[in-house]
């Protein structure tokens, strides 16, 4: 019984992180209407940038290192939009997607060039957790939950309680109409990239805190984030949140039935099931 409770707790924990990835991915999708294949690399670079600033030449403490890590990930997000996606905004989708895949591959191997392919951790010593209702949790894991809650509140405030958030929602509903009413679309798109990259960075760091760092971590989490946004309804930020938590739970509970080697394939399996059972979910948001 306590094993199941523990799996549920771990699932929620992973779900929180996936939710952050999925929310960022779906936001860019809403505004620019394409799946950013390089979103996984923002996750991975966010985590590695923190590693960089906590590591050799800098030796910043975690809270200080967070600031440049966040800043540079946002720059990376804005940079990929400015250099690659902006010139391609008016071309066909295939061109855009291949370019996004190219960025993803470029950044992934860039990380591998600097840090190598081996697993790394932030090097915190593992502290003994405390037990609550037969569930053991560590300080890191509490931090993950609190950070996710914090991010969700910030996203809510930005989207629904600020002018720029209103503009973002307007642009995603109808770009032309938003332009006509005097909304600065460029500024809004920039803002979207900032939130999306920041969420990816925070999520990546939390994931690395909970597990480890590895150049391949971006790609696999892109698939999970995508499964989460499909579950929640494409373009729906809160749907992405629930989708992410659901994927996290499903993944960790599946370990009770199947080999852990396949844990990462659960998200894909759910995606296929969803498509077979409820393809209409997607047709609704096709255009």
């Amino acid at each position, binding site marked *: 019984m306590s094993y199941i409770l523990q799996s549920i707790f771990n699932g929620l924990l992973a779900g929180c992180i996936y939710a952050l990835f999925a929310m960022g991915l779906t936001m860019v999708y809403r505004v620019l209407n394409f*799946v950013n294949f390089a979103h996984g690399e923002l996750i991975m670079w966010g985590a590695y940038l923190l590693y960089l600033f906590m590591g050799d030449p800098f030796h910043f403490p975690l809270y200080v290192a967070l600031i440049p890590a966040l800043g540079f990930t946002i720059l990376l997000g804005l940079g990929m939009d400015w250099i690659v996606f902006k010139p391609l905004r008016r071309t066909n989708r295939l061109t855009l997607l291949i370019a996004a895949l190219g960025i993803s591959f470029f950044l992934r191997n860039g990380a591998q*060039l600097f840090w190598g392919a081996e697993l790394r951790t932030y090097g915190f010593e593992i502290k003994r957790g405390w037990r609550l209702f037969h569930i053991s949790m560590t300080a890191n894991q509490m931090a993950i939950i609190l950070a996710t809650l914090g991010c969700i509140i910030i996203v809510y405030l930005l989207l629904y309680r600020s002018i720029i958030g209103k503009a973002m929602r307007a642009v995603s509903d109808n770009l032309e109409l938003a332009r006509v009413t005097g909304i600065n679309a460029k500024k809004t798109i920039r803002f979207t990239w900032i939130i999306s990259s920041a969420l990816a960075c925070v999520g990546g760091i939390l994931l690395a805190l909970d597990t480890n760092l590895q150049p391949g971590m971006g790609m696999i989490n892109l698939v999970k984030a995508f499964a989460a946004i499909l579950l929640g309804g494409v373009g729906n930020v809160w749907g992405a949140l629930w989708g992410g938590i659901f994927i996290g739970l499903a993944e960790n509970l599946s370990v009770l039935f199947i080999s852990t080697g396949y844990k990462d394939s659960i998200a894909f399996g759910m995606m296929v099931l969803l498509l077979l059972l409820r393809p209409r979910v997607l047709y609704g948001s096709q255009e």
Partner: protein
Amino acid sequence: MDLFLHLWIMIFIYSIFAMSLNLEMGYTGLFNFGHIAFFGIGAYTSALLTLHQIPFALAFVVALVASGFFGFLLSIPSLRLRGDYFGIATLGFGEILRMVFQNEVWLTKGPMGLPGIPKPILFSYRFATLPQYLLLTMGLTIVTFLILRIIIRSPLGRTLRGIREDEIVLMALGKNAFHFKIKSVVIGSVFAGLAGVLWTHYTTFISPGDFTLSETILVLLIVVLGGKGTEWGPLMGAFVLIFFQESLRFLKLPTEWGRYLAPLQQMIFGGLLIFLMIYRPEGLIREKGEGR
């Protein structure tokens, strides 16, 4: 001389692989980002069967059928998706298939890989030496080229191109776009499987690490560089890129560079993909009728 033969064998294998992707991506407009999966299915099927003393000719046929069958299975759920979703679904499929190769140790020996895959024997003729193997791959490349050329120039090919340009119009003309897209993926998967079979019996050792996203990117780059939606584009792209990749291997660079060289080369491929998309999305050879 051996280097030269090796180079051409690789160019031909990747040409077949690229031509199969070109049918799906170039002509039908499907974003298959997990094409390596079918290459892998072909490779593993043929390797496992021949290692269990099944004659090559039979293994060859079974491998192609298996690739096509998995292409069919994957396409049913994922072709319901719009372009970018299909891309992610295939990407995910590629990653998961690699997990299967890695985890089903009883079948694939997992990360240790399968050594000692026999050279192909067809009609009691053994393709063991490099020149013999080159003839085999060249012959099959020509066969693939001709078959795909017939398909592309047939009404089926026109329908596929129609789907790429405007699916709604094709549906209004009474074509079942979903069925045609499945056909495209199945045919593409069969030829990807063929490339996989040829590759596996050439290297005689395979492991899950050979079927990663990097291979998909390479073949994608081949198609895009050569010119997607053209008959000669994939051959051209394969020639340029494989020549570049394989000759790096024979430059006798110090081994300690390897740690940096591999990611650097991949970065160049990624960067080239971005560059091509921004400045020359049509590639080296331009599709007829696209020259505007």
